[in-house]
Each structure stands twice: as structure tokens, then as C-alpha cells.
């Protein structure tokens, strides 16, 4: 299988001198096409920093990164282009824009990618229908439950047909029923869209849904 994301010797340090913290320490990682990977580990072990590096939000101090077979170099490439074309993000706290409806929140991602409005509206409607929110298209985030917000968040992540979705603790603010429903939805979406998904989670119960679990400790991968 082809690697969608491949990192070699990825290192990220925050701070300088005695106050410096090595958040990710010489990590080698490979995530293959259509894989559902879970990154697990204690708080502060470097999971979020690692997906930020893999998602081109942070740039590594050292190491090489390839996405969809192409090397990433922040010095010569605009990382925002990579993020909008290749990557989707789902955040722990959903981060939907409060002044937009569910439909518009999904459309924003396509607006950023300069998709025509009519086309964006059709795709957003289609995605929200897939995540079971066809009746909630015109509701604002404040009118949606936590589970519904997270579904909108997944629909937004899928909007630009990314190669990989990084989800940071997507079930952390959901109850167990909502978590189960979301994991079922993630499995369905993965089948439907053939998208690679990497999930950061503490939730041991979600392990069974993963193709592979990557265990981290002190900035390093200790098991995979």
C-alpha cells in the first residue's frame, strides 16, 4: 500500500535552553492509504504535536515529511495550500464558526479552496446528509448538540476530498452513546470516501475500531 503520510526523524522542540521541551523526538511514522490509525498515549506525550507536524500546521525542527508521496518543505511551499488540498482536520472542541449554519460551516472549507458556491452548496448538503444532518442544514452551532457539531466538523474535514483526516480527541466532549455513533459514522465515511484517518484519543474503548494503534510516550513512538 502507498503511504499517504510518511515522516522520518521528525523532531519538534518548544522553548530554548533549560526550559526547552522535546515534544516529538526523532519519530518515524508511516500512515498508509485508507488506514484508520489511532495515536494513543498519556497527556503531554506529544500526540497533538505529532499530528500538527503531519498536518503541516507545525514545521519540524528536524526530519523529513512526505504527504501523498511528495516531500514537504515549508521554506519553499505554502503549507496552507497543502492543508486545504490534502488534509482535513477535526478538532476536540469542534471549532465551528458560530455565525454560520451547519451548511455554511462546511462550505467555508470549500470557499477557502475557491470552489464555486453552487458546487460547494451541493457537496456540503450531500456531506451533511451523509452524516445524518439533512434536517439540520440551516441550524447554527449553538442549536446543535455536541455529537451533531462533531458530525458537521467531519463533514467540513471531508469537504475538499482530503487524502487524510487528522482528528484530535474527537470524542472527548461526547457521551458514550454519541462516541459510539461517531465511530460508526467514521467507519462509514472511511468506506464511502476511501479517506485515511488518524485519530488522537485517550479513549481505550475506541481501539477496536482502528486498523493500527500507535502508542506514544515522552515524544517517541513506543509501539505500533
Amino acid at each position, binding site marked *: 500500500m502507498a503511504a499517504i503520510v510518511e515522516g522520518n526523524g521528525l523532531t519538534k522542540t518548544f522553548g530554548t535552553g533549560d526550559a526547552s521541551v522535546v515534544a516529538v523526538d526523532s519519530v518515524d511514522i508511516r500512515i498508509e492509504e485508507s488506514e484508520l490509525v489511532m495515536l494513543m498515549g498519556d497527556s503531554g506525550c506529544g500526540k*497533538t504535536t505529532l499530528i500538527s507536524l503531519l498536518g503541516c500546521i507545525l514545521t519540524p525542527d528536524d526530519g523529513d515529511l512526505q504527504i501523498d508521496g511528495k516531500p514537504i518543505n515549508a521554506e519553499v511551499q505554502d503549507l496552507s495550500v497543502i492543508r486545504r488540498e490534502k*488534509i482535513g482536520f477535526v478538532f*476536540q472542541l469542534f471549532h465551528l464558526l458560530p455565525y454560520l449554519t451547519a451548511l455554511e460551516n462546511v462550505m467555508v472549507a470549500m470557499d477557502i479552496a475557491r470552489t464555486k458556491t453552487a458546487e460547494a452548496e451541493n457537496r456540503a448538503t450531500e456531506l451533511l446528509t451523509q452524516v445524518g444532518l439533512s434536517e439540520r442544514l440551516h441550524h447554527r452551532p449553538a442549536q446543535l448538540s455536541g455529537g451533531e457539531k462533531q458530525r458537521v466538523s467531519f463533514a467540513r474535514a471531508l469537504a475538499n476530498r482530503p487524502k487524510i483526516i487528522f482528528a484530535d480527541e474527537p470524542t472527548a466532549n461526547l457521551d458514550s452513546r454519541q462516541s459510539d455513533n461517531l465511530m460508526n459514522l467514521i467507519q462509514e465515511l472511511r468506506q464511502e470516501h476511501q479517506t485515511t484517518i488518524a485519530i488522537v484519543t485517550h479513549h481505550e474503548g475506541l481501539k477496536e475500531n482502528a486498523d493500527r494503534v500507535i502508542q506514544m510516550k515522552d515524544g517517541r513512538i513506543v509501539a505500533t
Partner: protein
Amino acid sequence: MKTLFLKDMRYRQARVILTALGITVLISLILLLGGIMNGMRIQARQYVESTGADVWISAEGSGGAFIGFSMVVEEYMAFLNSGPGLVPDSASPLVFAQARPTVRGKSTKAIVVGYKLGQLGGPKSVLEGRMFTRSNFEDYRPEDPIPYEVVVDEKMGLEIGEQITLSNEKVRVVGKAKSLMFVLDTPLLFMDVRIAQKLLLGNTPHVNMMIAQTNKSDQPAQIAADLDALETIEVRTLKQTLRDIIAYYVDEPMKAVQFLRVMLWLAAGILVGMITYVTMLEKTQEIGVLKAIGGSNGYVMSLLLKQVVLISTVGVLLGLILSYVFAAAAPIFVAIHFVESIIVACISFIVCCGSGYLAARKAITVDPMIAFRGEI
């Protein structure tokens, strides 16, 4: 989604409205202050221009026409009435003094214009009533027992026959002249020069200036320069006099207002910049999310700048409209020049957008990592 920035503005409408209103008020104030100064300049000019005089003469070292006092010396008058380049017998003494007459029991500000009836310095005719009685003697002495009479500016609202009190003396209104207000709508009271000297200058033979006309064939500037070369008098042309009077009555006293206008511009810029900056701080998480999901700096910047431009445009336009409304309703003469208002609007727009741009530039430095923390 071309309306994304509008949706954000609607969501934060209270702040948007307050910002636009803040700009509106500041722009109105800038234009009104300018309009008040323009009005003062127009009013300062109109009396001077209405006299028909070409040269303005005062004693050397007196401070100049409209400012100091000059002794009326018969020799000067005789010289000026036959002076080179001057229209024979056109020279006329003029008192132009601030006064506080009591009108209908209320102390009012006014300018007393004392001149010789039939000569330069005052109206040739009245709208209603008659002109005041002319003094009989050209010389300061002997005592001339003419009645205390005044022709008032029509805008004072006085009736013929009414009396006003000036320096504890009753002065009867005998005529109304066409409105010719001086700076800050100060009404003019026209009376005989000898009565003005009696009431305001302690019956001394002083005037503020002498005015005269030049022959049509001659250049007033050259005549004024020639006369000025005589070391006992200062002679100014109409242009110089206008410059002096505007400097003395408008520009110098209004220096602080000019400074205030610049401050208001700065305040408008700072207001937009601060509110954009504070809004940006509030939206840090949103900006981070937009960047995390692929929004370029240009995309985020354009969202913020569209808002700044729209708020500034609405604020400036409302400010323009409001300033004209306030000018029409103002209790004093306010003259907002159209071209000046367009220039003020453009500068204000640039100041507001410029400060908004600086705040927006700061906003786009938000680290998209922030999307992984906190709530929107």
C-alpha cells in the same frame, strides 16, 4: 461565500454599529469644526469686502487696521483725501470695536462700526427705517450734540424705535441694514463715527483705521506700498487686510481647534484600529481554525479588510451626511465646503482603513496551532 464577512459582522452587530457610529461622530466633528472655521473666515471677509475700500490705513506701530487704535490727525486726513493714487475725498475714518450692548435687558455681543455717513465703511442704505444722523463737524471739536442713533443688523430682530444700552447710554434703533454678520454671527451696529468714539473710546479722537479707494487706473498694491513708505502710517491692500483680519480673528484663536481636528482624525484611526484589534483578539481562535483548514493569510486578511472597509465607508458616509444636517441646525454660521468634505472623507477613510489594515496584519500572524486549544 462572498457574504462570509457580512455574516460575521451581523453576528457582532453591536460592535460593528458602535464602531461605525464612533467614526460617524468623529467625522462629523472634524467637518463641523472645519465648517465653523470656514464660516468665521467668510464672515470676517464679508464686512471688509462690503466696504468697497481698496487701502486700509492705520498709524505706524498701532498694530494695524482692526487691531490697534490710530489718532485721527487732520493733516493725515487732508493728505489722504488728496493723496497720490487715491480717489479724492474717499478717505474715511472707521471705528470697528467689540462691544456688549444691553438688548431687551440682555447683555449681547456686537461689533460697533462707526463711520461717516455717505462715505466708506457702512451700508449706503437701509432695508427699513432710515440712516443715523450724520455729525455736523469734520473735526473732533467742537462738541456735536447729535442724537445717539444706530442702524442694526436685521438679524438682531430689533424694531425701529427700540432702544439699546451701550456704555450706559440709550441708543435708539433708527434703521435696519441687510444682514452682514461678523465672526461667530456677531451682529454689526452702524453709527456715526463721533458717537462711536463717545460711547466706546472715551470721546477721544481715535479710530481703528482709515479707509480709502484708489483710482481705477492705478494698482492698489503699488499705491499702498508708496504710502506705506511714509514712516508715519501703515497702509495695507484689501488682500493684505483680509489676510490680517483672518489671521487675527480666526486662524490664531482657532489654532487649538485645528490641533483638535488632527487629534480627531487620529482618534478615528485609533478607534477603528483598536476595535479591529480587539475584535481580532476575540476571533483569534476562529482565525486559527480558518488557517488550520487551509485559509491562506490573504484569505483571512481579505475577510478582515472587507469588514474594515465596509465599517469605514458607512461611518464616513454617515459622518458626511450628519455634518451637513448639524451645520444646517447649528446656532452659528457653519460653511462646510463640498470639496473639503470630500477631502476630509477620503483622508478619514484612508486613516481608518490604514489602522484597520495594521490590526488585520497582526491578526494573520495567529498560529493555526491555536485551533487545537480552547473554545471559539
